[in-house]
């Protein structure tokens, strides 16, 4: 398993779990729930933050925050 910040642009994965309890609450309410498919859409020009497609919309978050989301790759 890897974390969301390790995905490559265009790659999709399924959310598995969170490593930061407080951050998880914020991410959950934004629709990042376990089982949801996320796609890494874009990385900001300076390498951080990143933009992901989730729950039908575009969400931007810092790499540090994305690294608290554990994902399983889709074959």
């Amino acid at each position: 398993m890897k974390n969301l910040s390790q995905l490559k642009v265009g790659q999709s994965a399924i959310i598995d779990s969170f490593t930061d309890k407080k951050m998880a609450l914020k991410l959950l309410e934004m629709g990042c729930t376990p089982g949801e498919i996320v796609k890494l859409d874009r990385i900001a020009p300076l390498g951080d933050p990143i933009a992901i497609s989730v729950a039908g919309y575009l969400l931007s978050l810092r790499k540090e925050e994305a690294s608290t989301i554990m994902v399983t790759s889709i074959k």
Partner: protein
Amino acid sequence: MEPNQSFVNFTEKNTLKIALVGNPNSGKSTLFNALTGLNQKTGNFPGVTVDKKIGTARLTDQVTADFIDLPGTYSLYPKSLDERVAFDVLCNENNAEHPDVTIIVADASNLKRNLFLVSQIIDLKIPVILALNMMDMVEKEGDAIDLVRLSERLGVKVVGLSARNKNGIEELKRALLQPLPVPSYDFIDIKKIAPEIIERIKSVQKVKSDFAAFQLANNLDESLLVGQKNTEANKIADALNTLVIDKNKLQALESVERYKVINRIVEECITRKPGLRVKSVTQKLDGILTHRVWGYVIFLTILFFIFQTIFFLAAYPMDWIEALFVTLSDWATHALPQGELTNLLVNGILAGLSGVVVFVPQIALLFTFIAILEDTGYMARVSFIMDKMMRKFGLNGRSVIPLISGVACAVPAIMSARTISNWKERMITIMVTPLMSCSARLPVYTLLISLVVPHDKNNGFFNYQGLILMALYLIGFMAAIGAALVMKWILKAREKSYFIMELPVYRTPQWRTVGLTIVDKVKMFLVDAGKIIVAVSIILWFLTSHAPGNKFADIEKKYNDPKLAGYMVPAQLKAMASSEKLEASYAGMLGRAIEPAIAPLGFDWKIGISLITSFAAREVFVGTMATIYSAGDAGNTLSIRDKMRAEINPKTGLPKFSIAVGFSLLLFYAFAMQCMSTLAIVYRETKNIKWPLLQFFYMGAMAYLASLLVYQLLK
């Protein structure tokens, strides 16, 4: 799940209280504008620093509605102050703003995430209508939402609309008049998650639903912190005291449970058309606007336009406003009987009003840009491409716009810091923006540079005077960045700095929204900051135009002496009289009083007077210097410069405005918080006197130290 039969009917009421709540970017404000138009006012929630927008609309001939636009929020977990306000208004029946009906605004094109907040509000069991906004977007995508089915599944009335096109607004108004059921079902069974907690809360507190009880327990710490309804909070704390509560876990369970139900509902109610989506336009635009090269080129171009507009374009209407007030003052001086009251009206009140109104063009122009950038969705991209750079200094990607605008004027710039949602980043932006060299410093810089820096024609483009001016702008920028860095370490964060933020779909800007934003900002500035500015102007007027005892009368008698008229022309006599009067005035006394403190900087009491009067606006320095050196017309910089250049320091016998004094003054004006309008707007924006005071003293300290250092080194 048993259907709940209680209805709320308002037919007997003449005024309905209606709250609008919804996610950021759900079009909530657009709907609020469509409902209320220009009948809006901005107030304040009691006790907290959150703006409250209220508007009225007529529903029928008999019934009017007061709409309140609650701060946008993604959930009812109150993390920020804004969200806490929204939460309290909805849940607390004793809150003065507690509504009769709540309109939940949801973005239909982004239904899944929007339904999260909807589901929480449904579980509060208060009368609600779901306004499903942006139905036009859904149609454009070729999708279809079954509104009847959605209404059945949620147990609330659903109205589909498009606030931008004003479609469905009348339907929504009509729906408000009909008897409204409180939501019929619990969205999720919260009792399964926390049975014990809910039981205990219900035994000590009357609540409308299990979820309301659950929320009370979860938000206990916050309500204790704010000090709201302390006795109640204590009662609840007592009831819970033996329970071990893992709030994070409970909330996480609740969220997961909600999304499970939401996924099922979305599945049932939306028919999606396969194939190409409208959202791919956003994809393509993002490809350019967040591109590693074009993204910055475009952003810099936009910044350049904003800067040019508020720096140069605004100058014309500002000149007209000033001319208008000059005409008004002249007229009043001649039409009204001479005396203290006329003097107060012309030189105190009118001068103060002119100092307020003159900001309007800059504010209006800057907010035209900002409203467009916000409304199109571009502003979120600015954050996206600038975040990494700005984060290092404790700033936000959005801080770039206030900082650049600060080069024209700090007042609109500080108002524009509103778009920064993180409290700490916003405060730092507000605190450091006045260090950017604003346009009011320019006349002071020009005068002083021409006074002490030799003008060398030979170097052409790279002459010393130009280089020094550029250096001053650079110093201002470096000081702002440096101060931000220091504050990043000192200031304690109220909330963790998240960057978890939606990148909304690009849309064409709405001129109505832009117009209302401008009206709102201008009104806010005129009313809230305006009264402080006028009050300070009157104080400054009093200080400069009054003296203890009969001093003024004595001076006038002296210069009215017919013997003097033989030696000098009347204009010269008049100038000398005003100079002597200013020196004798309370401001003059203050100047003398602070002389020991500013002497180490190379300033005498005459400069001291200018430091005090230029608190009205930095450029007043030039006018005061003109009066003190009896140079007559303040518009004639050359004559002021020549008079100042001729001034001899009695102790040294050398010119008083030496290089050391000149540079010391330049740096003082670069750093010092010499602007009551900025302080007034900082107070308005932070709603706490602590911040403008802090700003005044930290910038003053920087100015003092810099001037001290330069004067002592160069003298």
